[in-house]
């Protein structure tokens, strides 16, 4: 590669790295391109390449370049949480099961009304939960169902995906399958019936094991 082009790429990388660290929120390639004046704006593939190189440059460092729904961001390398959480006195927030189940229903079943959430969960839904989720900008009203009362239909936001480190809803854990009563072998054991499901859980639990605050569900299970 000729010297000059390399140094141009070098500056491009510097600008992108600085912008991502200065912005305080994920930036997408279009936002990165907008940092340059019309004359000096690099083509999209150069920006992608710079991002890829920056990602590789993070090897062995304390941060990593992560792509989430609304763009790219630098974040602390996973695994360093035990030290980094000591920066703050506050313990990370835990979410109630009601909130998580509601969020899960909205994420997997969107667009969905409050009534539909209640019917799956079998209990009425407190307005607090919907309000809290809206205030966090994790969910939003995406329309109204055309039935009497015109109930609001909820969907998740990009902020929700960003918060959970996801690029798209496709990356959510797979929803367990519904088994048909008729097709079930009578002797089929419960644990065998849901092997994929169990494996997922084991993985999730593995991540959580390092974190004293993770594993809400497990400990809740133990309490009972």
């Amino acid at each position, binding site marked *: 590669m000729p010297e000059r082009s390399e140094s141009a790429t070098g500056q491009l990388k510097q600008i992108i790295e600085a912008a991502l660290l200065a912005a305080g929120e994920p930036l997408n390639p279009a936002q990165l391109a907008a940092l340059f004046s019309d004359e000096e704006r690099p083509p999209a593939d150069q920006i992608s390449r710079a991002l890829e190189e920056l990602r590789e440059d993070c090897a062995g460092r304390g941060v990593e370049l992560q792509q989430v729904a609304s763009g790219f961001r630098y974040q*602390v390398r996973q695994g360093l949480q035990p030290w980094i959480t000591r920066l703050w006195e506050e313990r990370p*927030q835990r979410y109630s099961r009601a909130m*998580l189940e509601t969020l899960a229903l909205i*994420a997997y079943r969107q667009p969905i009304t409050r009534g539909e959430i209640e019917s799956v969960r*079998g*209990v009425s839904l407190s307005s607090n939960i919907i309000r809290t989720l809206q205030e966090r900008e994790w969910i939003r009203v995406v329309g109204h169902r055309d039935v009497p009362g015109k109930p609001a239909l909820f969907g998740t936001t990009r902020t929700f995906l*960003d918060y959970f480190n996801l690029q798209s809803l496709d990356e959510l854990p797979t929803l367990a399958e519904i088994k048909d009563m008729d097709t079930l072998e009578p002797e089929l054991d*419960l644990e065998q019936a849901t092997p994929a499901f169990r494996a997922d*859980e084991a993985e999730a639990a593995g991540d959580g094991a390092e974190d004293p605050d993770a594993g809400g569900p497990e400990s809740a299970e133990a309490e009972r």
Partner: protein
Amino acid sequence: MPFAIVQGQPYTQVPEDLYIPPDALEVILEAFEGPLDLLLYLIRRQNLDILDIPMVEITRQYVQYIEVLQEFKIELAAEYLVMAAILAEIKSRMLLPRPGREDGEEEDPRAELVRRLQEYERFKQAAEDLDGLPRMGRDLFTAGAHVDHRTVVRLPPEVRLREVLLALQDVMSRAELFTHHHIELEPLSVRERMSMIMDRLSGHSYLEFARLFTSGEGRRGVVVAFLALMELSREGLVDVIQNEPLGQLYVKSPGAPDDTARIPEHA
């Protein structure tokens, strides 16, 4: 001393199969996200198959649980009582001989309940999976760097041509300028050229008439330039001067000193 009387039976201890410490009943109730959750718990705890629920046993346990809670005057959501009724109904249908359908298929009375339980269970699992995902503030922390002299650059607003034209429409109709026919007849390029000629003239006291025309522009350009000069002259923005018959024509700003007479020959 019994702590509860259920169906006339004194209870000195909580039924063993519930595993509930007596002082924690209310807390435990809160641990359940509703009747489906409680049912799932009863089924799972005994390692029973969700697809083949022993209705008699499950209904007995569920009702027992509800009764204990009620004996303690613990406020129960109506959903719990509705579920008790549903269970009792399914149980009775299971006990009765089922009328065979024409195709020989029999709908299991538990089918709807099983479907609801499974549906709830998958989202209960999804909620746990969601909770297990790495998330901001617990597992993830964004990295940021300090920026010196962080200033907000204020950019001028975007303007769309349509906005400008609508504004013009407004001001024109207010001023009733549409009634002036000469405005409509005047090509805009003439106005544009008028500005260009004025601009060229500034800094000079005069220009040769011919130099305001560029042959490269073609006939149309010459016409535009000529019309622009005529309009400028009519509006008194320029003077067109000829020092002698058939002599060189000059264009000058009206305010500029009339020094064309001194240098026409070698211009």
